[in-house]
């Protein structure tokens, strides 16, 4: 770079280059000012980029910090999901009865079969924990639509979610973290959290009011968040969905009874080997005024419910061999005809699931407690 030198001198060295008339030399002050301007321009561009990347807001709750929270509470268990670490893969199909066509143009609701891949899980980030009746039960599903679209939903057996926002979820998680000296969570932290979040107290009452079933097979699974259905005419309605079991309800036995460590998963394996497990997929249609942005509140009873088809799960596999292990049951993988609501949890769930998936995808895989041999029992 030949700065400050008369251009004509350089041009003379290169006869092929187009001739440029000489420019007056830049004075020292002018040159410094111009360099300063260049520095400011480059700093502004780099600063804008850094701003978007969150460098100036290091205390903001990000997907990475949220996932760090799971790791702080549960420890790091390489290869496992940061939440719902324990699970088994299942597969089967969804048989649509066509009742959903007027609600949503999604192909999954046209009469017919679509293959389904899924995963039953228990909440918590400890892959070697023991089954307990009141641990949150999860069911992640992936519907493979005939045109190649995918619909994923990650459901739980809670009628409402205890937290309205990702921030509240994180706060509660940190409040429930065991104290390093006592090995137990400090109850004062949880009391302080509940005092700040009356919506969580209310949601917990609703959750406690619902009897817990004996197993995965007779659990009801809820969409947690509200979504929106769009039909072929373009009409949009707020919805939630529920999977109601066709296996008869039986209350969970008292926790005092000694149980095998994997008793919930073992019972599921035995039952699915005996006969396919089935659920009705029920779409609940919200009315104007029903909150779509608050997963802690159930919609009033008496809302229209449409049975859109039957889910059949007839195969079960260990997490070690199931394709479901390496699927992120991101609730915002949606086909045309289903879209997200204004619930702030949805985008946050998508972001944190993605972060958890990225971390475990790159880690060596450890065997699951529900081994392939255990799953084959009963064959």
């Amino acid at each position, binding site marked *: *770079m*030949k*700065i*400050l030198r008369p*251009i004509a001198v*350089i*041009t003379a060295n*290169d006869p*092929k*280059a*187009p*001739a*440029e*008339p000489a*420019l007056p030399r*830049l004075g020292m002050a002018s*040159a410094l000012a*111009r360099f300063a*301007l*260049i520095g400011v*321009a*480059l700093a502004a*561009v780099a600063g804008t*980029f850094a701003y*978007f*990347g*969150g460098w100036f807001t290091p205390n*903001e*709750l*990000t*997907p*990475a910090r*949220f996932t760090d929270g799971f790791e702080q509470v549960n420890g790091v268990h390489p290869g496992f999901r940061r939440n719902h670490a324990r699970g088994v893969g299942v597969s089967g199909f969804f048989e649509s009865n066509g009742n959903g066509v007027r609600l949503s143009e999604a*192909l999954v609701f046209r009469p017919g079969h679509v293959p389904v891949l899924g995963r039953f899980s228990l909440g918590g980030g400890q892959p070697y924990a023991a089954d307990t009746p009141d641990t949150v039960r999860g069911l992640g599903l992936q519907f493979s639509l005939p*045109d*190649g*679209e995918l619909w994923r939903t990650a459901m739980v057996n809670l009628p409402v979610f205890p937290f309205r926002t990702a921030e509240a979820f994180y706060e509660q998680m940190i409040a429930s973290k065991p104290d390093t000296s006592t090995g137990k969570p400090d109850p004062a932290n949880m009391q302080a959290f509940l005092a700040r979040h009356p919506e969580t107290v209310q949601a917990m009452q609703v959750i406690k009011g619902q009897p817990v079933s004996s197993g995965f097979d007779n659990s009801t699974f809820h969409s947690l968040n509200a979504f929106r259905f769009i039909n072929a005419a373009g009409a949009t309605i707020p919805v939630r969905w529920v999977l109601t079991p066709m296996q008869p309800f039986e209350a969970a036995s008292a926790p005092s009874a000694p149980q095998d460590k994997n008793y919930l998963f073992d019972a599921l394996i035995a039952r699915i080997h005996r006969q396919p497990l089935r659920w009705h997929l029920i779409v609940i249609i919200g009315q104007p005024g029903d909150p779509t942005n608050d997963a802690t509140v159930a919609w009033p009873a008496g809302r229209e419910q449409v049975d859109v088809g039957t889910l059949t799960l007839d195969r079960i596999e260990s997490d070690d061999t199931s*394709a479901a292990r*390496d*699927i*992120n049951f*991101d609730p*915002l*993988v949606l*086909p*045309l005809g289903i879209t*997200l609501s204004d619930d*702030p949890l*949805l*985008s*946050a769930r*998508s*972001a*944190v699931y*993605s972060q958890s*998936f*990225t971390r*475990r*995808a*790159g880690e060596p895989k450890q065997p699951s407690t529900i081994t392939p041999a255990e799953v084959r029992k009963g064959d």
Partner: protein
Amino acid sequence: MTTQRRQFPAFSRLLHWTMAAMILTMLCIGVAMVVSLADYYVLVSIHRPLGIAILILVVIRFVNRLVNPPPPFPATMSRAERLAATASEVTMYGLMFVLPLVGWGMLSAARYPIVLYGSVHLPFILPHDAMLYAVLRKAHTILAYLFFLMFIAHFGAILIHTLIVRDGILKRMAPWNIRPQEAASTE
């Protein structure tokens, strides 16, 4: 004939400025979405189709680059600078191809659908493999930061040529047409 030309052809300039805006938007969205909870979904929903649009445009741009070679470098550029400029151009073309392909590949390996619009989505181009996803995901970030550094270097070089050397290099890529006599005259 090409030795007389001072400016890139109008179509090349249109592609340059359109893609510059798209790529800068893309880099900012990329770095913002990975730290966002509330806006993650909206940003990802823009990031994926915008990346594919960039991939389509860079194919057109590459063909155009072969058909329409650029005007000569200004005389003010030393041999080393010309080499650096050429290397930077090759790198940026490479990144424009590779970044969207790595993005498409990593989403394929993780079985994340790549929805362009409505039910229109791309096929998966790699097998379902979590470790492959993890490696490509890392590469996607590193290459994106490299692209941002390339942009800073490119922008800085143009600023120095425009404000210090004052050789009118920006006119080669100006969005407006420069008349030949104007291009040959002083700034």
